């Protein structure tokens, strides 16, 4: 469905300092700087996949996404999505594609979402019958029937985001790009949006998601691509991503005796929430669980214990910092 080969994007930007002298200097000469936002990446995505693009700010995720949507022309490389080249056959392509941007609204601020939907219907040339059927279904799924005729500016962020999804799905796209779709939403709204995405994905609609909300990734994505410094540093299933960093787990403990800061090899203190409560990271390759539990029970007396997979945040943090360290080595 999506085939990307040696994709690169370089752009030039100007830079200046913040002093008055530097500001005045830029009136005459602006030093240009070349930025390689995306650096020779290749991957394929199959129909019906739900893929998350992750990476720190400025890593190249959004630029990659913009090239995949046909908004930006690449500097080099090839992309075929749905059998089309996005930036060359843009109009044909975007007819089959949807997009939701958490920070860029497609709705019209002063008028109800239903008017914006109507405009999109005309722009996409969706027949009346198909439009009515799709709209009814989406309204039902997202439970937004009572807000459709309220001006957009009077809607809550969660309600607006649901309407953004309707806007993006009205023309029944086969491929949907989601850029931070749950940003700023409360837990209820997040859950509702995630459940909607899952329902749509069950219909073999492909989703490509970029987010900093790792809960979105854990609950939605089957596959994760981590981009850093314009390169794909990981392309794996979520479980595979976790196992890349070794057999590490998170252990939350409540003990009878305080545990000292000095810990045996294989253990790392993550946080201390009280004198007798702490969270540890355990590398079970170095210190298997059985000797760890018996040692801690004998030495400090375990009152309560919870062992969990390492949170994805910790995995990502480690991945970003490792990559950053390699870059500066």
């Amino acid at each position, binding site marked *: 469905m999506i085939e990307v080969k040696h994709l690169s994007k370089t*752009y030039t930007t100007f830079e200046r300092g913040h002093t008055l002298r530097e500001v005045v200097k830029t009136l005459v000469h602006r030093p240009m700087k070349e930025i390689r936002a995306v650096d020779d990446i290749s991957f394929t995505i199959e129909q019906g996949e739900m893929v998350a693009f992750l990476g720190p700010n*400025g890593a190249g995720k959004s630029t990659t996404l913009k090239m995949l*949507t*046909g908004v930006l022309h690449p500097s080099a490389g090839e992309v075929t999505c749905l059998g089309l080249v996005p930036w060359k056959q843009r109009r044909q392509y975007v007819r089959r594609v949807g997009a939701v941007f958490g920070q860029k609204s497609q709705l*019209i601020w*002063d*008028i109800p979402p239903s008017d914006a939907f109507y405009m999109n219907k005309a*722009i996409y040339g969706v027949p009346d019958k198909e439009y009515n059927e799709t709209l009814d279904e989406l309204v039902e799924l997202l439970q937004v029937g009572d807000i459709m005729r309220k001006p957009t500016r009077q809607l809550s962020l969660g309600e607006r985001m649901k309407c953004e999804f309707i806007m993006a799905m009205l023309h029944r796209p086969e491929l949907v790009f989601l850029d931070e779709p749950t940003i700023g939403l409360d837990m209820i709204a997040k859950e509702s949006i995630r459940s909607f995405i899952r329902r749509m994905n069950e219909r073999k609609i492909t989703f490509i998601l970029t987010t900093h909300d790792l809960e979105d990734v854990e609950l939605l994505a089957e596959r994760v691509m981590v981009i850093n410094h314009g390169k794909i540093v990981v392309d794996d299933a979520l479980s595979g991503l976790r196992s890349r960093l070794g057999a590490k787990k998170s252990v939350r403990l409540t003990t009878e005796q305080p545990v000292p800061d000095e810990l045996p090899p294989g253990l790392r203190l993550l946080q201390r929430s009280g004198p007798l409560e702490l969270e540890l990271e355990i590398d079970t390759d170095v210190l298997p669980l059985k000797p760890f539990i018996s040692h801690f029970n004998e030495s400090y007396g375990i009152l309560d214990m919870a062992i969990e997979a390492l949170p994805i945040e910790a995995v990502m943090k480690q991945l970003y910092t490792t990559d950053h360290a390699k870059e500066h080595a």
Partner: protein
Amino acid sequence: MKELLACWAAVIRVKLAEQMAYRSHFALSVLLLVIGDLVVPLVTLLVYRSGASFPGWSLHEALLVQAVFVLAKGIAFPFFFGMIGTTLSQVREGTFDLLLLRPRPAMLMAMLLGFDPEDFGRLLSGAVLFGFALSGVVVPHWTSWLQFALLFIASIAILCAMSLFLSGLLFRWVGSSRVFDIFDAMTGFGMYPGTIFSKTMQNILTYVLPIGLIAFVPASALLGRSGWGSLWALGSAALLMLVGIWYWNRMLKNYTSAGG
């Protein structure tokens, strides 16, 4: 074509609905545009009342040039000039991405989404002024009306081309709202009969910056002052329009979006 018209009708409907959300703002904007467009004709009226005049032009003839200018803006502004504002804000914010995600030509989408019903106020002031100016001149012959109709189309095409040039500039001069001042400075001369300027200036305003073709040439045709030869302006307008389209599409390639 049918789909395009439906698309256009839907956008106009939505844009009108958007304006109706703030009716007093809409009414005030229309009123201010009407008043603003009538300032130069009122000054012209005062000039003539004081005994001065544009040499070779009666008051109503001079007002006809200005009326044609305002009428042309009354059509070009709502339909084409909104794209300058759309480009100005959306390129700077990076929301032009959303426009490129629509399955229609980007230029058409920029024009459609820039449609501004407020600017129809200019059409109203132009129509009133046109009626007043015509009431004081000899009733034009039908051939003059035909020439005028064709040249008026050329006038709209020239204004459309100008909007394409100014909008295109904004892909490179990101966020430069001074493009509106460029337009005002360039077209200010178009409100007056071309013959009041020196020969060199007349040539510049006709052949280099075709400002004279917006109002002076069509109004002259309606007054029977020029023959069929003035229809060369049609070719000139068509050429300018083609160059405008080419330029806009070329400048679109400079679009770099904004950080994500």
